[in-house]
Structures are given as structure tokens and as C-alpha cells.
């Protein structure tokens, strides 16, 4: 099969997976600040309101974020702010 994309060779010892591994989720959320990122699709706010209520009800810290439009990736400034202020993030869909 001829790949459509661009091929480059791995410069490493190849002990890492071909696909990037996801970060391991924290085992325990106590004390963590959870970011809720609305993707600005219809009713995502309502959905995240409900999630926030559930999380704060468990005594967790929640911060809310929103990207301007669901049609484009989140601006770097939003991502940076989440990285700066949160330990984990939930990105919210809706419809």
C-alpha cells in the first residue's frame, strides 16, 4: 500500500509505539481542578452545566472554558489557559 501522506523515518530506538500513546488518566481526582471545555455546539452548555453540578457535588473544583466555534480547533490561548489552570479536562459535545 502506498500511503497518501508523507513518510519520515523514526530517529529513535523505536521503543515507543507507532501511534502516540494517550496520557494515563489520574487514578484519583481528589484535589484536582477539572476543566470543562464547551465546544460551542448547540446545548453543550446545558450538558456541561449538568456535568459541573455532578462534579462539584462530589467536592471537586471545576473551571469552565469555551472555544468560539465548534467548526475550528480551540485557539491556542484557550488550550494554554486550560493547561495552566487545570489537571484534567472534559471536552463537551452536545446536540
Amino acid at each position, binding site marked *: 500500500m502506498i500511503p497518501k501522506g*508523507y*513518510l*519520515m*523515518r523514526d530517529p*529513535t530506538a523505536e521503543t515507543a509505539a*507507532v501511534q502516540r500513546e494517550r496520557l494515563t488518566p489520574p487514578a484519583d481526582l481528589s484535589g484536582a481542578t477539572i476543566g470543562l471545555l464547551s465546544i460551542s455546539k448547540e446545548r453543550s452548555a446545558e450538558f456541561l452545566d449538568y456535568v459541573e453540578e455532578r462534579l462539584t457535588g462530589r467536592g471537586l473544583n471545576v473551571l469552565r472554558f469555551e472555544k468560539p466555534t465548534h467548526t475550528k480547533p480551540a485557539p491556542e490561548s484557550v488550550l494554554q489557559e486550560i493547561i495552566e489552570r487545570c489537571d484534567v479536562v472534559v471536552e463537551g459535545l452536545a446536540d
Partner: protein
Amino acid sequence: MEYLVIVKRDCETCQMVAPVLADLQNVSTLTLYSQDDTTFPEATGGALDDTSLEESWRHNVEIVPTLIRIENGRETTRTEGWDRADWVRVTGINALGENLPVFRPGCGSKSVEPGMPERLALKFGNMHFESRAIEVDEMDDPAEVAYDRGWTDGLPVIPATDLRIARMLAGTTRKPDEIIGDIPPNLIPCTVEKAAINAVMAGCRPEYFPVVLAAVDAVLKPEFSMHGLLATLWFSGPVIIVNGPVAKRIGMNSQGNALGQGNRANATIGRALQLIIRNVGGGRPQEIDRSILGNPGKYTFCFAEDESDPDWVPLNLARGHAAGTSTVTLFHGDGVQGVADQKSRDPESLARSLALALWSVCHPKLAQWSHAILVLSPDHYAIFREGGWGRAEIEAGIWQALKRPGHEIVEGAGGVEEGIDHARADEMIDKFHPGGLLVVRAGGVGGLFSAIIGGWTAHRRNEDVQIVSQEIGT
């Protein structure tokens, strides 16, 4: 008889032999390929298409025209360019090209233009690489993918495509699957191919690659202790000093700003070594690399010695290599400390002055803790030279001037708790271990300044940790 001929229109010799080819076509089976224009030669009614250069590559054609005699499907002889006697020999036709000059050199085949042999080998040959291919989606930027995967030192890298790797490998005679050695910290066997990938990413040209390989060979010598250098809390990283004809051949900078930015060879050779340690060995900052502060030279630190004065003994000769040999010398070095002396006019004063500055290496009250490089600028060197001092006298003069009474630097002396052991108060103390001061010439004119590159604190164990030199191969 059967012949195969490869020509191109953009070659006056090919144009000149066109009537000869027409004659040959009339009396034999002629397979004629053109590299650039299938309507050429008109005299033969054109040629078969070899604009892909596949036939030229398969027949190892270096010059056009090339005439190959084929018997029973196999080449039996060939001739290149136009040498009438040789064409007669190959064809056995005595009257061939009688009205043409006796000899005309041919032109270069398009299949051997720079970079083309590697491109053709990848396309038509069985060249392949062992390192796994990472596919970058067409919507992604390869440079960003390299960042995401942790392959860079913080600066962008050149994506290692097969063509770039093939060209890099053409810079050495060493085989791609040769194991250079185990790269610390993870002691991963590193092939020449892996080194080539990292050299591509660092931005090296293929002609730099033997220098990169020599640097890797050098740091893998056990006495260099690359693992410890990578893992140290101290500032040091590998510093590469290049000597010999290779420096001029690949355009290294030994003149103004030799320790700074702006020269591709200086910049990328040092960077390639660091990328190999990072990517193959797994040596990353804040992981196994425990440096408290690091230093900017850990991106890259590589320069050539100025060997322009025939009276100067280059560093590699002083270290026992033969004259005319190209070498790398690997030092465990920190950043650059400038030394100004604008008043000394005789060698004795300047030696004492430089010695004063050298005492600051590691700590002014510690001795034999780390080695150092003294990079003598042209204007400082001129003072020594005019005073009749060469390398031996400079080294001896500075060594002598570096001796200090122990009581001045023992713990607590001068109200500073740091210092050497009280037991040495009555000794005269040498700042460095024997062989621990490298004097190197580099730099531009116009300033009575030189530079000190301090060394690693592990130099205090000077048998375990040694400066190494390595001849640069091919």
C-alpha cells in the same frame, strides 16, 4: 550484433555522433535511449524514452553517449564519449565516423547529477531502511509531528525522508547496518542508518557525516564517560573540536564567531551528536539528563581550530595524531567565559593574566576539579608569537603561572568556606590535572580577548573521565 546507446540532446558530443548512430542502426540492432528528448537524434528517428533515467541507472551510465555491446542478452563491452578507435573496437566497423574528429569527451549522464544516484536507487533499486516509517497525514506538518513525538531539542528538525537519508548515507563508506555502538543512557545499539537519520534532522550535509560518526565513536569510548556527562547535575555537554583538512573541506568556521552561530557545519555536527544521544540513547533533560542549569552549548558545540599559522602545533598533533590527519577531540565543556587583557604586551604578563582567569574555572578556590579549554584569539596569540612562544612555551608558561600557594585557597581562607583541604596549605597547588588544560586557537582579529570553556567537575577523577580524540574516517 546488438547495441544499447544512451544519449541526451543537451550534449554536443551526442549531437555529433548522431550520424554514426544512424549508420549503426542500419547494420545492427540498436536500442537507443534519450535522457531528455525522445525526438533526438532526428537522424535515427528519435529514441526510446529514458527521461525517468531507469535504463541509465540500471546500466550504470556515467557519461553520455555510452555505447554498450550486448551479446546473448549480456553486456560484453562498452565505451563512453566519442573515441573513434574505441567505437571501432566495440562495433568492429572500421568505417564508423570516419569524417568525425578522433576524440571528443562525452557529457555527464543525468543519472549521476548530484543527489540523483540516491533518488534512482530508492526508486528502482532494492535500497531500503530498517528504521520504521512514520506516516504523516497530508493535513499535518512533519516538523510539528517531530515535535509532538519528542524528537527535537526544541528547535525545528528537517524531516528524515528516505531520499535525505540515502543522500546522508552516501557521505560515508560505512554500511547502513553497521552498529556504531551502544548509545547512553539506555545503551541502545545505534546503526549508521540511525545516525544518518539524526544527522538529517540536525541539518547536516552528507559531507559532514564522517565527522558526526567520528564524534559518536569518540563519545562511546569508555574513558569519555558519555553516560555520566549526560546524567550530570553540572552544566557540561560534549564539545567537539575539529582539526585537519576536513575542516576546510566542509567549510567549518575557525575564525570570527567560531564559538557562535552562523556556520552550518559547526552548528549541525554538534547538534547531530546531541540528537543521537537524545533520540537513540533516550537522554532527555529533566529525565536522565539531570543538569541543574545546562548551557546553550548543549544544543550544539562544535568548532574547528585555526591552523592557518604553520608555526602553530595544532591540537591533534599535540595529542599524538599524525600531521595532515583530520580528527575530532571531544571535551566535556560548559559555556564560554570571556577573558579580556588589553594591556599585556609580553608573553609572561599574558600567561600570568590568562592563568588568573583560568583559576575561576569551577571555583577560584578549587583545584584539579575540572579541566578547561583556553581558546586563544589571534590577537592574544600574536603577543605570544612575537615573543617567540609556540604551543609548548604557552602551555608551560600558563602552567607555571597557575601554581598557587595552598594556604591562599584552603577552606575558610579569605572568609570563604569553599576551598581545598587544609592538609594542602603548605603545598604549591596546580589548578589542573596534567593534560587538563587544552590550548586551542580560534577566532577573529580585532580584540585582545580569549575564551575559557570550563570543564566537567567529574574531571577531578581524571582517570575515569578523559578527553578523547578520534581520527575521522570516510
